[in-house]
């Protein structure tokens, strides 16, 4: 039943899809290679090329990559394991500060960027486990509240431990990456873009592998019914911790990358807006579907970073009096809110849902299994 035994020859498209299914990792890498080479071409075509010069586009795409990473990581926690985490930015902060400590004049250390990616991921995962251990026994709403608290506490710690973090001033002059003697610079965003695509592609391969594994099934089982999962032999506590740790490690990666590009880190970068934005990306993109979440993050980031700015200029040029005076960038969270509400009403499964969630959210009453008739008989 897993291998369809149809007599007629499958179409070339069907054969391609079957191939892609059998070689998923290669398909993902190829997909990223194609996307990464097409994007720079697309932004040279008129409507987009008039918005901003190509190097700014590429720079924006590299930044978008940070949010794609964050969204893919949060998707493990929220989309797969079903744990509502409202303080995800905490792990982004931890990864960022890890890189700042490892490679800045402030600590006098200069650990290279590439191993620091791993260090950032491991440190974030460890703290994810430490923060998760006492809280993951909580369910649903309570977990959401506690993670919200962590999301506030972690930046507050970085803010107040000023002996170690320079407090509000933040840590500056952080070293930029280097690859085989080639120094990344602020002027040229292309190396960041390429490196980011590499990190994204590899992360996505890993996440797809996890999702299809014994562990991924255990996460989904917990999301569907925690008690039944435990009664099937799943250690729900450690399995949830692993989801938390893996989600956190992805955020750690994102933090290291973002900091190496910005060359500065301060506690103000990790407020609730970050957690919220990433959660909105996951929900709008389509919880549980990795490509969907990545695309959702990309679209939302691009709209926010480019199109809203463009909208201001657009209306300034048109001389529409009311619209001219509105700063659309300021209304970005309002727009998120409206988009989320509209989405929940019209397409609750997100833009690119996994087939599972689409079924779940569009069940008609016919699909629901019949309620059994009562059977109470002492027919001895």
């Amino acid at each position: 039943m897993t291998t369809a035994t149809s007599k007629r020859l499958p179409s070339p498209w069907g054969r391609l899809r079957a191939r892609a299914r059998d070689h998923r990792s290669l398909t993902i890498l190829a997909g990223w290679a194609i996307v990464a080479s097409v994007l720079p071409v697309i932004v040279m075509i008129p409507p987009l090329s008039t918005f901003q010069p190509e190097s700014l586009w590429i720079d924006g795409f590299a930044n978008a990559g940070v949010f794609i990473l964050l969204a893919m990581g949060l998707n493990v926690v929220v989309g797969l394991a079903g744990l509502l985490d409202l303080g995800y930015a905490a792990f982004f902060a931890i990864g960022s500060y890890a890189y700042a400590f490892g490679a800045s004049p402030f600590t006098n250390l200069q650990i290279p960027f590439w191993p620091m990616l791993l260090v950032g991921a491991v440190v974030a995962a460890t703290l994810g486990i430490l923060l998760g251990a006492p809280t993951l026994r909580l369910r649903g709403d309570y977990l959401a509240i506690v993670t919200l608290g962590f999301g506030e506490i972690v930046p507050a710690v970085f803010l107040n431990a000023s002996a170690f973090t320079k407090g509000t001033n933040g840590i500056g002059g952080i070293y930029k990456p280097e690859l085989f003697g080639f120094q990344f610079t602020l002027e040229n965003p292309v190396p960041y873009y390429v490196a980011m695509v590499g990190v994204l592609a590899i992360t996505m391969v890993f996440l797809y592998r996890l999702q299809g594994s014994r562990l991924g099934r255990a996460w989904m089982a917990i999301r569907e019914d925690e008690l039944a999962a435990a009664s099937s032999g799943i250690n729900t506590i450690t399995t949830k911790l692993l989801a938390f740790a893996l989600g956190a490690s992805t955020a750690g990666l994102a933090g290291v990358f973002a900091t190496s590009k910005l060359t500065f880190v301060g506690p103000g970068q990790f407020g609730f807006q970050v957690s919220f934005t990433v959660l909105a990306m996951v929900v709008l993109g389509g919880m549980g579907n990795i490509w969907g979440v990545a695309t959702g993050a990309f679209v939302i980031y691009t709209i926010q970073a480019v199109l809203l700015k463009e909208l201001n200029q657009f209306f300034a040029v048109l001389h529409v009096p009311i619209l001219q005076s509105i700063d659309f960038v300021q209304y970005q969270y309002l727009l998120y809110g409206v988009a989320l509400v509209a989405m929940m009403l019209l397409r609750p499964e997100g833009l690119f849902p996994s087939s599972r969630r689409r079924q779940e959210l569009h069940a008609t009453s016919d699909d629901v299994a019949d309620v059994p008739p009562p059977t109470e008989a002492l027919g001895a």
Partner: protein
Amino acid sequence: MTAAIIDPPPGGDLILQARKVTKAFGGLIAVREVDLDIPRGAIISLIGPNGAGKTTFFNVIAGILDPTSGVVELGGRRMVARPVRAWLEPVTWVLPAVIIGALGVLAYQASPTAGGLIVLLALIGLIAMLLAAIVRPAWYRVLLERFGVFKSARPNEMVRAGIGRTFQNIRLFANMTALENVQVGMHLKMKSNAADALLSTPRARAEETASVASALHYLELVGLKGRGDQAARNLPYGDQRRLEVARALASEPALVLLDEPTAGMNPRETREMTELIGRLRRDLGLSFLLIEHDMKVVMGISDRVTVLDHGECIAEGTPDEVRRNPRVIEAYLGRPPE
């Protein structure tokens, strides 16, 4: 089908032994001092009117509810009982770390490096405790016993100890396919970990392929051949019940707890389920504890029957003995008018 009467040999091969199990929900005593022995390879039924406490007793045995008093032993090992000094557990975690951490903070005044190292040590201690609890639960349990702490086994530990179960109100993983549901049941039989999955090692891939084959086998066993690709939520009610049985069997249990496995089934489905239970006992030597309202099923396949009413065990014996017991008839039909 007449039941073979299995008298448990004294102190013999009991797979499960429940002693004076009591469970109270506030003022309501749902189960009161119930004893139950399950010999290896036996089919034992638990019957009683609605609200008698059958499901509650099940949940105690499965490690879901802690009993108010009483003990459940598996193969002579105490698995479930009222927790003792449970409050000590977080203390054993936190107290050493707090003490060492405080020392570190004090030492920081004298020498920042030494202080920092000691605080790091406290953190490492905390992580080590966590790792012990995750990676070596057995060691961790022994460690806790040193402090006189007893915790009942959690549901997943009961599965590891060889108990599989189904639920009265079906609890499948509704949005996963039937095949995936059974694969989740195999969780403990599979060994590949997160690292295997990340690297897609040959071991992980071979295990995954084998698990699909094995899951298909269980689906066929319960009569769900060809339904593997369907989402569990889309299966008809009777098939959902069967899928729950398949998922429970997939953990390769020695004892299977079935909570009303034939509820909502038509006579033919009921007969098939009854035959399946008999066949599993005969072929695989599985033991069963069955909650059942359908007396034809109970009388047909049980070796012994335990009757609960208002939480109390009012009768225990062979199906024939129980059927004739006046207290049982009274519990079901009410006291005959004087």
